[in-house]
């Protein structure tokens, strides 16, 4: 439909909860927010039940701010810490079955394209490392090989946080976690490489150290998915509980890991690059 779905009929606004009034009057709908605007507008997500100091929560908050069209977005998730926050956001959220995000998103996106031929709907699959590359591996890879037009965002905390700290495919080799009592035997999975092999049009690795960059990366991924083909963001979102990172040091850890092995990297296909150049030039 349009932004009109958000606006109450005349005379009704004052009777709605203050939360809703704030979303209508001071929300991000129809605007493009910058990182420096944080704290000055009503965000799509505010309250959540995540652990104190959780870096994943910061990243999810930034993803919501980065959505280019939140009024036409649907997020698909699966079991894991992330969905506890995502489900509190002001965007329809499909909390599916275990590891089904990219299969569900494939059907959803195609269905939405049939129903709304004149209105692009952004579908974003956002969930943890285990949900995407362990239990969801098959659906993830095939959605990429099919070049499905939605964005995939991995909240990579390198552990099964929500079930209490078991190793995942994204855990580093040697880390002692539950179900890896002698340390993880295998290497961290190279999902960036897999995405490249599968021909994903926009691939990015990022840590939540630079909010502006996160917003730009999220927008790029969603716009490429909307117009060109699959996109993938792999975000380092540490688990301060399972990795025993003191709460005040969570951001320090993000900077350290970024410097050590999680530096910002973009892999963009030629056609996606051409498209992004055009879009970003136009905006300037």
């Amino acid at each position: 439909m349009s932004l009109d779905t958000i606006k109450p009929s005349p005379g009704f606004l004052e009777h709605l909860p203050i939360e809703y009034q704030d979303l209508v009057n001071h929300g991000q709908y129809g605007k493009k927010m910058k990182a420096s605007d944080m704290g000055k507008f009503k965000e799509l997500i505010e309250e959540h039940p995540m652990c104190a100091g959780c870096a994943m929560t910061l990243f999810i908050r930034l993803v919501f701010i980065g959505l280019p069209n939140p009024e036409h977005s649907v997020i698909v998730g699966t079991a894991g810490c992330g969905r506890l926050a995502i489900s509190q956001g002001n965007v329809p959220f499909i909390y599916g079955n275990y590891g089904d995000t990219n299969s569900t998103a494939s059907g959803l996106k195609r269905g939405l394209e049939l129903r709304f031929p004149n209105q692009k709907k952004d579908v974003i699959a956002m969930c943890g490392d285990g949900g995407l590359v362990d239990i969801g591996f098959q659906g993830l890879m095939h959605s990429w090989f099919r070049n499905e037009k939605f964005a995939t965002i991995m909240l990579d905390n390198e552990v099964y946080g929500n079930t209490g700290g078991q190793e995942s495919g994204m855990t580093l080799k040697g880390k002692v976690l539950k179900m890896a009592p002698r340390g993880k035997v295998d290497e961290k999975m190279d999902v960036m490489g897999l995405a490249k092999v599968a021909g994903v049009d926009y691939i990015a690795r990022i840590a939540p150290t630079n909010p502006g960059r996160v917003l730009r990366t999220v927008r790029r991924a969603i716009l490429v998915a909307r117009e060109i083909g699959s996109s993938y963001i792999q975000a380092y979102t540490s688990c301060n509980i399972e990795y025993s990172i003191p709460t005040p040091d969570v951001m320090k850890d993000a900077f350290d890991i970024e410097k050590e092995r999680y530096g910002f990297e973009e892999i963009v296909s030629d056609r996606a690059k051409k498209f992004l150049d055009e879009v970003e030039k136009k905006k300037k």
Partner: protein
Amino acid sequence: MSNAVAKPKDWVPKGDLQKEISAEKMLLELPRELLFITGSEAAREAIKRANIDCAISYPITPQSETMQQAGYLYDEGYIKEYYRAEEEIGVMSATAGASRAGVRALTATSGPGLMRGMEAISSWPGARVTPVLLDMCRVINTPLAIQPDNIEISFLLNTGMIMLHAENQQDFFDYTLAACEVTEHVDVTLPAMVSVDGFFVTHARGPVSIPSDEYKLNRRDGWRSAVPAMDNENPPARISRDAPIQKSNFISYHMHASWQQEVFAALERSGKYFEKLLKGRIEIINPEAEDFIICSGSAVSQAREAVRQEGENGRVVGLVKVKTLRPFPTTSIVNALKNAKRILIPEFNQAGWMHKEVCSVLYGKCKANIVDGPRVFGGMTMPTEMVIEWLAKARKDFP
């Protein structure tokens, strides 16, 4: 095998030329032409008239015959979106995804494929999505086999989804079209499975009378639904529309319980629509009989012939054919069987799920001796003679 050729610019999808009508008109009013076609072809003819937006599937014997036909229908423009997905968890998830978008989605599978997709399928009713799943039953137990056996149906009986069991090719056509409409009524908003015994029906020809393909069912109206489609076309609210109700508190338990109650209440509400479109949720032959056979699926065909042969020999045997396994037509069955003296329940599976169903609804309401069989499975056949022998034994055992 040949290379793909792009559609010409002036290509018109054939589905665009069909006229939209209700299932009532399609199934009960339009004139029909008699064909002699396989169950898979009957499914194709139903899909052609069902106004399917999105069909997704993964091949498995004996389903492949149908879903590859669906591919040709997509190519001709009767289906708008179609693809072969990664495997059945992917199929069932994507089918639900399409249904959540507010379009009419259909898929099909068989035995092991159904089991593989089970986690997703069993989540459909609670998600209040409305896809139609065609299920061509086959053996699921080890050793692996492709033969007919409908044990898989028992795994879905308590999911909350609508379940129909077709006797033959004709039923497979009619039930599929009925399911496509009933699932989408606002007071239903549930998925449906239309099962048929594989091979015996899918890979055999039978008489099927069908209306003209100039017609198709009315399109799904994505706005009409018990829960909103996941299309972000509703005013935003800071609640998840798929609430993860996992908190350990009384409100969460209560939400979950009431949600399940509503799913099963909706399932019961679907009964009235099938009552009309299928001309009753059960079929009764010889209602005055003392000896009755009750069954569903292709066991009905064997029972039907046994009833005819017994009649030729002066023995009146009644038959109750169950069309809707869910909602189970409890009242109709109790009324049909309350005066029966002996009841036989032939089945094509080892567990005897229909026997358990019938026993549980008749308990305390009927004095008949209920015979636990005859039963064949693993692809074994059930000759009419076998049903007649069991009837004779029942008369001897329970004079």
